[in-house]
Every structure is written in structure tokens, then in C-alpha cells.
């Protein structure tokens, strides 16, 4: 009896937290993030997107990371959400990013971050694109991983593998394994356009073995950063 009541109370408490988290997402986050989809279908929509789409957040992010990051947000995309908005002529002849135009993410208090992270995990568009358990634990040496990421597959062109090293237009990958679910990383790298039809990350036609190794590498990078 007590156990049953306890479960009911727990369920009620969880429901309440989720409801307040959902309200928080609507009130505080929806101005910059799409909570319902679909992803941009035109270049105009792509240019205007202010923050990552969140309608598949529950498939994409690790809840623990969300909760921590929302309290102490750091920059993940060195050139902002769409690099094209902030490009200026650089002094060395190479295009540069006008960093004064970069917007810092709002920091939430602990309770709000927890509620928001819980609510985000319920946004699960794209369930059919993820194969739960597809990523198999494994490892790759950092130098072999880098060789693959840079020389064999060219990913370094757009992504940083450590602060200040790598391309600027994509999100950095040295914390990717902390941020993202491994099965989602595999799904996204396999076919970015299935998640985001106008994404400027191309489909590199990676093999299943490549996909596993790239996740191994990002896990190794994240460990290295600790």
C-alpha cells in the first residue's frame, strides 16, 4: 500500500517537474530553438535559425550534460549557428568571424536546468532514425583517430578537435561525446540530411566501421580534454 502510494507520489512529482520544464522550454527557449519541427527546408530558414533544433533533443543529447551545460554554457559552435552571418574580411586575407556578433547562451539555475533537461529528453522526433545499441563500446588511439578524422575523411575541415585547432563552421567535436548520445552520433553522421535536410554537414557515405571508429575517437577526445 505504502509502496503503491510512494510510486504514485513519485509519478506525480515527476509529472510536475516535467510540466514546469515544458513551460520553461516554451517560455525561455522557443524564441531561439525549434521545439516542434520540421527542420528548415529553405536556405532562408536555415540562415535565420538562431540555435540548434530541439525537437529531437531526447534522441540527441545526454541528459547529464544538458543539466550541467545549461548552468554553465560554453561555446560549441565557434562561428555561431550559421557562420555566414558573421563572416568579415580577415587581416591576413583569410575570412574571419566577427566574434562581437556571437551570442552567449543564457545560464539557468540548478532547478531550472534540471527541469529543462528532463523536459528536453521527452522531445523525441526521429525515433525511427536511431538504432538503440548500435554503437558498440570500443577504442581507437588518438593519433589513429585523428588520421581518420582529418586525412581519410576530411572532417577536420569544419570541426575543431581541440580548442583553436580545426575548422570553425561546424560544432567542435572535442566535447561531442559528452554532449551527444553515441547511437545518435552514428545516425547523424550516417545521414545528416535525414535529421536536417538543409544541414551544411554533407553525407560522407561513411561505412558502419567508420561510424563506430569516429565515435570511439570522439570519446577518446572527450577523455583527453578532462
Amino acid at each position, binding site marked *: 500500500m505504502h509502496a503503491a502510494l510512494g510510486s504514485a507520489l513519485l509519478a506525480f512529482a515527476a509529472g510536475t517537474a516535467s510540466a514546469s520544464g515544458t513551460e520553461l522550454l516554451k517560455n525561455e527557449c522557443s524564441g531561439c530553438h525549434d521545439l516542434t519541427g520540421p527542420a528548415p527546408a529553405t536556405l532562408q530558414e536555415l540562415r535565420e535559425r538562431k540555435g540548434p533544433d530541439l525537437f529531437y533533443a531526447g534522441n540527441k543529447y545526454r541528459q547529464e550534460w544538458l543539466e550541467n551545460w545549461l548552468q554553465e554554457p560554453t561555446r560549441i559552435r565557434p562561428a555561431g549557428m550559421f557562420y555566414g552571418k558573421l563572416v568579415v574580411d580577415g587581416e591576413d586575407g583569410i575570412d574571419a568571424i566577427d566574434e562581437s556578433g556571437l551570442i552567449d547562451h543564457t545560464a539557468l539555475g540548478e532547478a531550472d536546468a534540471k527541469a529543462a533537461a528532463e523536459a528536453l529528453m521527452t522531445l523525441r522526433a526521429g525515433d525511427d532514425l536511431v538504432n538503440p545499441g548500435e554503437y558498440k563500446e570500443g577504442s581507437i588511439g588518438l593519433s589513429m583517430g585523428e588520421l581518420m578524422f582529418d586525412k581519410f575523411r576530411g572532417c577536420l575541415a569544419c570541426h575543431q578537435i581541440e580548442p583553436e585547432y*580545426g575548422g570553425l*563552421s561546424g560544432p567542435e567535436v572535442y566535447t561531442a561525446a559528452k554532449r551527444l548520445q553515441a547511437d545518435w552520433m552514428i545516425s547523424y553522421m550516417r545521414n545528416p540530411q535525414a535529421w536536417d535536410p538543409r544541414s551544411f554537414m554533407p553525407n560522407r557515405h561513411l561505412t558502419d566501421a567508420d561510424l563506430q571508429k569516429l565515435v570511439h575517437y570522439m570519446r577518446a577526445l572527450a577523455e583527453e580534454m578532462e
Partner: protein
Amino acid sequence: MKTYAAMAVLLAASAAPALAEESGADLYQVYCTQCHGVHGNGMGINVHDMSVQPRDHTDASAMSARSDELLFKAIKEGGQSINKSVLMPPWDGVFSDDEIHRLVEHMRELCQCRHGTG
């Protein structure tokens, strides 16, 4: 029953996001300038740590040495398909063939050149 099935197919088709027709210049600005630069000169924001510099699309002598078919192939299948850098990815998952043709046209405007006229 067949009518319902047909309606379901129609509904499914209309629910899929239709990708708008975009100009070659707009496509180039959004996707290509990250490496090839906003001026098309190969000096995009990503080049600092690249082992091979992206092609300068304003270089008429280099660009006129390449046929439209070769440029189309490089965009669609990536640099390696024409024995060039792996840093140029295949864009077939992003662009339709029509869009790639429009990009090639735009590149001809950037270089102010045609194949064999440099």
C-alpha cells in the same frame, strides 16, 4: 479501401518537407563559402588548419582548365573522385543535380571564364 490508401500516400507525400529551388549564388554562399571564402578565392573561415588550400574559384586560368563536367563531379562526388583533396566532401546528399548545375554556372561567373578559354 484503395481510396484510403491513396489518400494516405498523398498525405504522406504532402507532409514531407519540400525543398525549395535555390539559386546557385545562394547555395554557394551558404555551403561553399565556409571553405572557398565569401569572395570565392579559397580563403574561407575554415582554412587555417587545412593541409590543402581550397580551390580559388576566381582563378580564371585554373578554372578554365576544368570542364563543367569535372566541376559537377567534384561537387557531387567529392574531391577524391577527381584525384583531389579529401577535404572537399561529396555533396550528393545535400544538392540535387539541378542545384549542382546551378553551382557550376555560378562558379563560371566567379571566374569569369569557360572551359578552354583561359
